């Protein structure tokens, strides 16, 4: 009997062999997450959908260029989504409002239909982020969701570039340890 849940790595190998079924499976697995990310960055559904379509097509065409040693398939796919969304954001405007802090990460409009497993994942990441000191958390959020470069953040937050880098470094290392513990 064929494996009903092929691994991400297996899906990517099939993608490289031009298997449309693998693309559909990958979309079913990560389309919603990719869209949520793009929407969070762009705040608008039409361009968020464009970004997701663009990113999955780019993965479809570029799957042969994927290298496992650069990160897992999920990280690769989401980095394409992120890159495209931020690219659009940076072109769209030179001024981006700073995202709200606590309110942004409340599960206000969370769909209750998401699986229990995913909710656990969501909660773990939220807890890991919320466990960070505010300055580290805000630096990471503004960089990743706000599309700010570290140089821009240094100006925006009024701290030296080295401080921004330090906050990113320490914040990500803390998250890494938290996530490793729960794996």
């Amino acid at each position, binding site marked *: 009997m064929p494996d009903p849940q092929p691994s991400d790595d297996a899906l990517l190998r099939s993608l490289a062999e*031009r298997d*449309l079924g693998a*693309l*559909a499976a990958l979309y*079913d697995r990560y*389309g*919603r*997450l*990719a*869209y*949520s*990310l793009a*929407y969070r960055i762009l705040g608008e559904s039409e361009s*968020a*959908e*464009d970004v*997701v*379509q*663009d990113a*999955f*097509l*780019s993965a*479809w*065409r*570029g799957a042969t*260029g994927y290298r496992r*040693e*650069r*990160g897992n398939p*999920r*990280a*690769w796919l*989401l980095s394409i989504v*992120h890159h*495209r969304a931020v690219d659009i954001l940076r*072109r769209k405007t030179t001024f981006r409002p700073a995202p709200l802090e606590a309110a*942004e*990460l*409340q599960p206000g*409009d969370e*769909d209750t239909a998401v699986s229990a497993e*995913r909710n656990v*994942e*969501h909660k*773990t*990441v939220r807890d890991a982020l919320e466990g960070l000191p505010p300055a580290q958390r805000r630096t*990471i959020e503004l*960089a*990743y969701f706000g*599309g*700010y*470069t*570290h140089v821009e*953040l240094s100006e925006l937050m009024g701290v030296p570039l080295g401080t921004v*880098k330090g906050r*990113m470094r320490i914040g*990500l290392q803390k*998250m*890494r340890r938290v*996530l490793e513990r729960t794996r």
Partner: protein
Amino acid sequence: MNEHVIDDLDAYALGALTETDAERVAAHIAECSPCRAEAAALAEVVSTLPDAVPSREPSAALRDRLLAAARAGAVVGRRPSPVPWSLGRVRLSRVGLAALVAAVVVLGAVDLDAYRRLDTAASERNDLYATLEGLRQGGRWWYMAGKDAFAGAGGTLVDPRADGYAPFVLFHDLPPVASGKVLTVWLVSPDSTWARAASFHPNGRDLQAVPITMEVSGFDRCAVTLEDSSWGARSGQVVMESRIATAPTPAVP
């Protein structure tokens, strides 16, 4: 080897570098395995951040659009013989770019609306002028006018002849074809051998770029036929064609 980039790896993983800095880091990572391992670990940490955002459902149509676009690309990408170079992401993206330039050529003017009608990414449109420059340095193209049922339609075979730019045909106003039929682009050599260069379905838009998976040089004619299959020898009727060997190389407007 260049200096390690440890200092910038966190910002790199978060996508918080300028393009120039990100390229510098990527170049270093490609050659340095300790930095590469650290970057991969950070990329996986960062890839959990989307789990922290409110979950949203895209429209159901997005899935269909994505699969249709991939399927159209898959037909175009199918090829009868091994290709001399990889048809990777960069190259296909270049095809998209070059198609934009050809839209200018075909329409005889800088028609901004034509760019929007092309099914291509905004980021590619922004690189239009770089590509135009590539074509300016020695690209060639030939126009094929449609006949009979294809009167009013046409296609421009573009051979950019620049590194990183694949040949392609930019079609306009293609009529729909019966289900089960495919359009096939052929390159015909001086000894009348027909080589299949691409098979595709019209996408229903008024402009459509179709990548060609072989070098154009060495052939003296290109043609498009309506076939029953994406494989095998030519059997269908010619719907458009052009001589390509002796045509003069026009100047880029």
